[in-house]
């Protein structure tokens, strides 16, 4: 039998640095989120639909020989045909082109409302959450009061004061719409500023600006984007709804809501006049919501049900 001596029991030296090779490619948070989003088929289909919607809304009205306001009483209420793909309405206007003008308004309202909510909400919520204490309390109390006013009331009041139109609708939607974003951002700030990595930055001598823009904002981007992606469809729907009940844009401007409204009495005889705007409203809403869900899952996998 082999003689065992003490030398046989020396610990082998392991170079810690060798042991810690990581073979997986390094992915930043956003690259990782994009990878997860790409795997989500429903979200990708929605995204492709939305991109197509945006592209068509920009180019179809530019290239079409029809426009949204020229009336042609001889050719009113025509069925869909090669000349008028979606038919014509009761004034002989081309429904196809009007749909894309309507898409422009919907997207304008959706993105403008989201952008204003983003700017106002992030600044307001950011200040409240970052400084906390009395400032926070006063600011959030004010937001609560504003939030308690029903928005239909706000819209009606605004319409009394201003011209009805896209601008008024955006104003009405954002007057209270930013509060949701402000609450999300404030919650994030309150939670994140207690994190140890913020204390670590402070102990290294970081000032407020660095803490805010290097640590707090980048870590709040996930929830901000998720909120944003759901603000867009709700603003689009609100515009359609307001236009449908006659509080939105006025003739001859085409909006999906006004088109649905005008198509409603003719539903029995000329169903396409109601069907096309209704289908576009529904499918667009669905696509935005599914895409928003996909973003939420990609940005924060823990939230997935």
């Amino acid at each position, binding site marked *: 039998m082999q003689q065992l001596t003490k030398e046989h029991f020396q610990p082998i030296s392991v170079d810690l640095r060798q042991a810690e090779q990581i073979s997986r490619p390094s992915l930043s948070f956003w690259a990782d989120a994009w990878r997860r989003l790409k795997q989500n088929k429903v979200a990708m289909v929605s995204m492709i639909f939305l991109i197509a919607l945006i592209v068509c809304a920009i180019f179809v009205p530019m290239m079409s020989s029809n426009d949204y306001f020229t009336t042609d009483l001889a050719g009113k209420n025509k069925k869909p045909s090669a000349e008028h793909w979606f038919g014509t309405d009761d004034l002989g206007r081309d429904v196809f082109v009007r749909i894309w003008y309507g898409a422009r308004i919907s997207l304008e309202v959706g993105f403008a409302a989201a952008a204003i909510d983003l700017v106002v909400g992030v600044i307001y919520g950011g200040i409240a959450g970052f400084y906390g204490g009395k400032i926070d309390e006063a600011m959030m109390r004010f937001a609560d009061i504003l939030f308690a006013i029903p928005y239909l009331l706000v819209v009606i009041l605004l319409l009394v004061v201003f011209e009805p139109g896209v601008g008024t609708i955006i104003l009405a939607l954002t007057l209270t719409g930013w509060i949701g974003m402000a609450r999300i951002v404030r919650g994030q700030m309150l939670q994140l500023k207690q994190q140890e990595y913020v204390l*670590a*930055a402070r102990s290294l001598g970081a000032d407020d600006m660095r803490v805010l823009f290097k640590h707090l904002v980048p870590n709040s981007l996930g929830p901000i984007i998720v909120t944003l992606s759901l603000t867009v469809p709700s603003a689009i729907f609100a515009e359609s709804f307001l236009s449908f009940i006659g509080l939105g844009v006025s003739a001859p401007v085409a909006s999906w809501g006004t088109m649905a409204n005008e198509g409603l009495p003719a539903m029995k005889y000329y169903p396409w006049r109601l069907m096309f705007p209704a289908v576009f409203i529904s499918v667009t809403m669905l696509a935005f919501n599914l895409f928003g869900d996909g973003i939420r899952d990609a940005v924060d996998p823990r939230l997935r049900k």
Partner: protein
Amino acid sequence: MAKKPIDQNDNLLEIRDLKKYFQIGENTLKAVDGVSFTIKRGETLGIVGESGCGKSTAGRTILKLYDPTEGQIIFEGKDLSKLSNSEMKPLRREMQMIFQDPYASLNPRMTVGDIIGEALDIHGLASGAKRKERIQELLSLVSLNPEHMNRFPHEFSGGQRQRIGIARALAVEPKFIVCDEPISALDVSVQAQVVNLLEQLQEKMGLTYMFIAHDLSMVKYISDRVGVMYLGKMVELAESDKLYSKPLHPYTQALLSAIPIPDPEIERNRERIVLEGDVPSPMNPPSGCNFRTRCPKAMPECAAAAPQWKEVEPNHFVACHLYN
């Protein structure tokens, strides 16, 4: 430990009657309520106590991450307690912190290189190629692969993350580091690695540590002296051998009796002091000595007045009426 002898008269840090109160609505929470001690240059001062007794708050207040409610923090002869943030900035290079939670203490959106480099950016210590070189040097110093500087924290294990945190603290070449339970979130096998790393760094760079923990055996191993805290107050402070062999305060005695002894014979026969009840709320601490509600040796005078912080033997401080 192969450490340089510590000069008992060379105080790097002197804490005098430090208080930190948090205002919670109408109530005042006395997280740290009048502690005084010194930390000698090159030593490791351990701080132990149950959860919620104010260890972290004390450490953070000493680093001026919280504004002290009262008291003085004298670092190399200079009182920090009243300094503003901008006056503190150069001093931030002298004192650093290592945090408890390796998952919460690294910004998940930053690469390891940027996390460590932040210190260099804030103080303008290095930029460009020199910055990269320095970051890699720091990573090697804590036994991490320097090539990992472009990776994100979630790609590392708890022990590796804790070493990233150590590298970040070392980037400014501090003299003093508060280690706030740096190992309690780690596996036992990894704990030893991190403690050994901290000891090596101390030797190499002449660091002074305030080592917060609730694991008494680990604190004994790493500390020169140990302070015991209870409900915002320091109750006993002594050299670690002395504190463990001859604890004076009933609370220290109870804590020590809870450590299992790896000898079944002794373990079976020894007497264990079991503390009754829960730690009272720091919003509404008992009058007099705040340990009296759980103290097995409580006397009538304990309710009347708080005991004084006294040096009952050379270098052995205790706050208890038994020794007043």
